[in-house]
């Protein structure tokens, strides 16, 4: 019978059926960071256990670390304590760690692919919900809580229920100035922030087939914002070309065997999904969120909906969101004044994102009232961008150029909004308080849209800034 990638990879990793009816699923790659693991290691210790497969665990530091300096001890004693705890845990258990200052340090979902740790056909878990990012390579990758981190440390396994599969086809050619971020946000608006609960998403269609790996990562990253714990793209030549030569990718003859196996785990041509949706990529424009969840968005040239026009279940939340954000029903998002522009996060801080943003600020200045921040997703991205002179482009325009980390995506370090500032952000969550100020307001958009907003000092349509067919990718 025709099988999907979900079926094949799930079966391959099924150790046994547990008495509870759940699957004992083997986890091929476990990624850890400083914020969701200290308690897990402590729980292990309490039980006298140690990691069972330390060579399948890799650590980095991203969430709480400062992005302004690499100094140790870090000026923030809590950050220092969390970093030191991870260092001690990794050292004790012989877990490779890409710590602060390491050439491979970065946001966990950026470095996994960069290092070639992330590969097709794997199961990947991490104590972070955006682990779905790694699905771009045809892996089953999902976020877990700290008690589950403990379980994976101790057993390299999880007790799981197999999700259903929804295939989302993006057909047609994306217009100029439109990115994978816009497609994902449009999808979440259409299917709802909880529409994907219980599903894994398989992204298909010719628009996805043409996407670069960076774009596929952005798309899969945002699966969880639509409620789907995992999202994947079937591996193809684009995937293999990205992986070839990466540090942990197979080498020599093993490479050829790997490619043959990777091809074999893709969904069979006629394999059915539990649900199918089609989205016309050609009809999507640049998207901006106006509310306090990633589903509350419009295309930049569209007015914010009147809550009265929304389904009854969404009205009250929309009213509250409008009030929180300081928007009126029917208002345009265009021309909304922004105080902060943030280019960063595991959604959009890879080299192609920085290039797209730089192309809009080259020779320009950030508006006087705007604080602009560029935080590369990893040290490798940072170095590659610097080799191209992108850091100089951003700095000349008045942006701060930072060390890699999560930074203003979640405001756990010093990078925070203050008061009710409005932030044009290339990150993934516009939840209340997400960017470190309980009253701060986040407008999610693509990195190019953030760059354009930084220069204009307000939300603009990136398509009006760049000639059609111009440099925006």
């Amino acid at each position, binding site marked *: 019978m025709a099988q999907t990638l979900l079926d094949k990879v799930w079966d391959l990793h099924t*150790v*046994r059926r*547990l*008495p*509870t*009816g759940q699957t*004992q699923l*083997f986890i*091929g790659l476990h990624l850890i960071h400083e*914020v*969701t693991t200290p308690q897990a290691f*402590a729980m292990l210790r309490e*039980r006298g256990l140690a990691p*069972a497969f330390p060579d399948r665990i890799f650590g980095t530091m991203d*969430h*709480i670390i400062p992005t302004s300096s690499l100094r140790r001890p870090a000026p923030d004693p*809590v950050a220092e304590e*969390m970093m030191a*705890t991870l260092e001690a845990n990794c050292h004790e258990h012989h877990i490779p760690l890409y710590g602060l200052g390491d050439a491979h340090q970065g946001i966990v979902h950026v470095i996994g692919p960069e290092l070639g740790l992330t*590969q097709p*056909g*794997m199961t990947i878990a991490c104590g*972070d*919900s955006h682990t779905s990012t790694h699905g771009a390579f045809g892996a089953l990758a999902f*976020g*877990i*809580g*700290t*008690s*589950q981190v403990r*379980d994976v440390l*101790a*057993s*390299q*396994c999880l007790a799981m*229920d197999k999700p259903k599969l929804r295939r989302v086809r993006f057909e047609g050619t994306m217009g100029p100035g439109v990115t994978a971020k816009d497609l994902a946000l449009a999808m979440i608006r259409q299917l709802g*922030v*909880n529409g994907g*609960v*219980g599903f894994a998403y398989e992204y298909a269609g010719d628009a996805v087939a043409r996407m670069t790996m960076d774009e596929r990562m952005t798309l899969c990253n945002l699966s*969880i914002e639509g*409620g789907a*714990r995992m999202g994947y793209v079937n591996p193809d030549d684009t995937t293999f070309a990205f992986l070839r030569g990466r540090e942990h990718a197979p080498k020599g003859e093993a490479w050829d*065997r790997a490619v*043959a*196996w990777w091809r074999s785990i893709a969904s069979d041509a006629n394999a059915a999904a539990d649900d199918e949706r089609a989205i016309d990529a050609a009809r999507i424009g640049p998207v901006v969120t106006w509310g306090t*969840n990633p589903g509350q968005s419009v295309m930049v040239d569209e007015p914010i909906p009147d809550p009265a026009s929304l389904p009854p*279940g*969404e009205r*009250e*939340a929309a009213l509250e969101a409008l009030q929180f954000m300081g928007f009126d029903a029917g208002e345009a998002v265009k021309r909304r004044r922004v105080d902060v522009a943030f280019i960063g996060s595991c959604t959009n801080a890879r080299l192609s994102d920085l290039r797209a943003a730089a192309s809009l600020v080259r020779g320009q200045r950030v508006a006087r009232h705007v604080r602009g921040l560029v935080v590369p997703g990893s040290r490798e991205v940072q170095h590659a961008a610097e080799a191209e002179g992108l850091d100089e482009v951003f700095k000349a325009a008045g942006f701060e150029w930072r060390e890699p980390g999560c930074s203003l995506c*979640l405001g*756990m370090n010093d990078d925070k909004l203050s008061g009710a500032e409005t932030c044009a952000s290339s990150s993934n*969550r516009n*939840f*209340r*308080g997400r960017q*470190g100020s*309980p*009253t701060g307001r986040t407008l999610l958009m693509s990195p190019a849209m953030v760059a354009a907003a930084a220069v204009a000092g307000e939300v603009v349509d990136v398509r009006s800034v760049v000639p059609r067919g111009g440099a925006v990718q």
Partner: protein
Amino acid sequence: MSASRILSVTGRALPLAGDDIDTDRIMPARHLRAITFDGLERHVFGDDRAHASRDGRVHPMDDPRFAGASVMVVNRNFGCGSSREHAPQGLVRWGIRGIIGESFSEIFFGNAVMLGLPAVTAAPADVAALQAAIERDPQIEVRLDLESMRVTAGTLDLAVHLPAAARDALLTGRWDGLGLLLQDFDQVRAFAAKLPYLRDFA
């Protein structure tokens, strides 16, 4: 790993209305700045509570009418967003022993069950009726029975749902499932040795 069996939760309840309440709201990220879960009970819904009191409102968690509640009644997609276990940890430490809602995010649900916190679903109309009953009489005793899968409160008697695996785990006291995963661990090692990417794709 011995854990206790959870057959039912009985107590006063607190209604917390709203769809898509994310874990950043339940536990703002600045409270994740610690290497233990200690003290999280002080920060549950911290920003929402401060916001409410600034606006001259009372957040349900600060409402003296609901003080001491052990059951929480929520709406759709509760606990979406970040995977942080700090959210259910904070709720448990605050005193919540059971949650009844229209639906939960998957990661939150899984985290809750692993802490022995049943998160059961009910039909939207039933959730609304329960929330209204608690608002009318905050002293009303709510009983969530995992054996009969019913919730009773005054004259209300509602069906609730919980996936079979989670229900069994709670009823049998095996909600901390690590012991099961570690059983016959040689099998797991033998299994892993056969995975193509762990043997050079040979």
